[in-house]
């Protein structure tokens, strides 16, 4: 009795897990092949780093990239580090992003910001007109705390946008010194070596806030603040793989897979009931519970469902009854050797266990190696397979046995 309650509680929890909060399939995480998007792999160049700094630098780069993906306005962007041997890769997944060039330039750029002074050097020309030279100061993007888009005349859309910046305490000090000695002169701001604006210093600025105003459009101001926020990357990176997948296939593919899954499931249900009658029917109930539990795990973890992953899951529906078939065939044999029904059932579960265990272990070994071997969709497939094997062991043994005991001990 305790067991059946456990099963009911698990099944109900699984149903809730699948259908809440929105009651449909939108909450599953689908892979790029289903929702369309951009997949980028960067290799980090760590040749200039001491080996003790590599890990920190890579994880800082990952955070930086993550920040930049957020700036692209992608809600479910994923940035992962993959390290094999001395190679460090950053995998960036941008669901829904179709414009690969914008993505590449926003993510891959190394924005460096500098404040420069204008120094006049005496000209060698005879007329003596001094020429102006830009001299970078020690105030750089590293001294920035944050940047944001502001509007000069308050929050009115009509006013031209500007970029407000806030310095770190050290940056504030540097900025104060620099502005003090440049009152009345221009203070050019350089991004990646290009002058983006050259505001004139009115008076020495000693607080931590400053405004960069120029002839910005809203887009310009936004882009500038994005670039300032993201700053320069700690490690140079280089694209080694890029994939851009259109979203046209997605919904249709999910629908088709769903259809295939339902047809496959019905075929198995019929097969099981014809072959094993009442026992088969109980195995079908266990199979349905298997599907519910697996789906809710996919959603809660969450497992990224790619087309291959969904195919893997549908395949696993076929494999999930495997243990039950082994057990039921064993029960048939035990019966043919003259055991009573109840004894045959108990012995069937007991004696089939070694082959169930060993055969599932071999599948787990290859699925584990697949998980190690793969990235992206291969990994998704391996993960659905591993989850499927483990859950099916639970449902095909614990659930089926409980159901069989209840039905046969009554009669």
């Amino acid at each position: 009795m305790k067991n059946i309650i456990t099963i009911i509680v698990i099944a109900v929890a699984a149903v809730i897990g699948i259908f809440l909060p929105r009651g449909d399939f939108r909450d599953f995480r689908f892979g790029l092949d289903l929702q369309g998007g951009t997949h980028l792999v960067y290799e980090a160049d760590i040749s200039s780093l001491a080996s003790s700094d590599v890990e920190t630098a890579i994880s800082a780069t990952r955070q930086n990239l993550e920040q930049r993906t957020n700036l692209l306005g992608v809600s479910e962007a994923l940035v992962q580090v993959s390290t094999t041997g001395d190679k460090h890769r950053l995998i960036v997944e941008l669901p829904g992003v179709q414009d690969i060039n914008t993505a590449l330039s926003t993510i891959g750029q190394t924005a460096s910001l500098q404040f420069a002074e204008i120094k006049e050097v005496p000209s060698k020309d005879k007329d003596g007109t001094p020429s102006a030279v830009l001299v970078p100061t020690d105030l750089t993007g590293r001294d920035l705390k944050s940047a944001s888009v502001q509007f000069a005349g308050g929050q009115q859309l009509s006013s031209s946008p500007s970029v407000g910046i806030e310095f770190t305490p050290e940056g504030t000090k540097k900025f104060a010194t620099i502005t003090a000695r440049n009152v009345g002169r221009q203070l050019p701001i350089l991004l990646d070596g290009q002058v983006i604006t050259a505001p004139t210093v009115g008076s020495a600025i000693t607080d931590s806030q400053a405004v960069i105003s120029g002839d910005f459009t809203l887009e310009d101001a936004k882009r500038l603040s994005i670039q300032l926020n993201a700053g320069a990357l700690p490690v140079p990176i280089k694209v080694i793989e890029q994939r851009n997948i259109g979203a046209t296939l997605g919904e249709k593919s999910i629908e088709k897979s769903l259809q295939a899954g339902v047809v496959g499931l019905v075929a198995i249900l019929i097969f099981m009931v014809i072959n094993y009658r009442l026992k088969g029917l109980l195995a079908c109930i266990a199979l349905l519970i298997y599907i519910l539990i697996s789906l809710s795990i996919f959603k809660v973890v969450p497992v990224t469902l790619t087309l291959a992953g969904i195919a893997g899951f549908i395949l696993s529906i076929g494999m999930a009854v495997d243990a039950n078939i082994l057990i039921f065939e064993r029960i048939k044999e035990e019966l043919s050797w003259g055991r009573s029904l109840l004894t045959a059932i108990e012995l069937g579960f007991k004696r089939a266990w070694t082959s169930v265990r060993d055969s599932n272990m071999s599948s787990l070994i290859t699925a584990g190696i697949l998980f190690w071997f793969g990235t992206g969709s291969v990994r998704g497939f391996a993960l659905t397979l591993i989850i499927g094997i483990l859950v099916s062991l639970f449902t095909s043994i614990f659930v089926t046995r409980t159901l069989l005991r209840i039905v046969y001990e009554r009669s």
Partner: protein
Amino acid sequence: MKEINFLKYGFFYFAISAILVIPGLISLGFWGLRLSIDFTGGSLLEIKTSSSEETIRKTAQSQNFDLSSVQSLGDSTYLIRLKEISSDQSRQFQTKLASESGSTVTENRFETVGPVVGRELTQKAILSIMLSSVFIILYISISFRNIPKGYSSWKFGVSAVMALIHDALLLLGLFSILGHFLHVEVDALFVTAVLTVIGFSVHDTIVVFDRIRENLIKFPKKPFPEVVNYSLTETLGRSINTSVTVILTLTSLLLFGGDSTRWFVVALLVGIISGTYSSIFNAAPLLALWEKRRS
């Protein structure tokens, strides 16, 4: 139960396997596999445009692209494979193509894989297939260590792996033939299918071996080949039934599951049928032959 004499026809079953595997091996020798950019590195561009294949070729050549193939997928969609280009170059090409042919060009897919990534995938694929084999031999050797004296558990492991190699070779050969005649490419997903099939093939073999182990204990006086034969007969029903359920779901995927995973499903389906066959007709007879030679 009527006992079926599996071992009497042992060589006949090996011959069937040979007939199935050898054409593929020949194809592998002559044509090799049609490797996707996952392995070779390079770029792949899928576009929808009403311009002709010839215009596409000409425009690509005018951009100095190193084209490997332009394949029509129907519905005025083309798949262009070429040496590695950047997304900027791809963009320029599409603009040029649009102006050249006076039609719109829509990009469905653009993929670029660097040569390093491709080489690594190849190494990893080979390594993971070898690792799986080693781990499976190890696992079976350990799990079957308590078989009666006089039999060595590692022979069970090696026989299982021989059956698995049979399945892997059959798949590789089939896809070499498919690659040559139908331009089917071997990609990372194909490796996934091979590894899954390996897992399943051993899965089936273990069911048979497990019964052999049990019967060796039950009938200590029976000669080994007879025990094998008896065990095969006993487990035939369940070997077939467990495969049938998987074949049912895969067939359903093949019929209703859409195009993008079609060859992946074909690989799984062929591999699983082959896995069932090789477990019954290769692994167990091989084990019997091996033990008979010894005694």
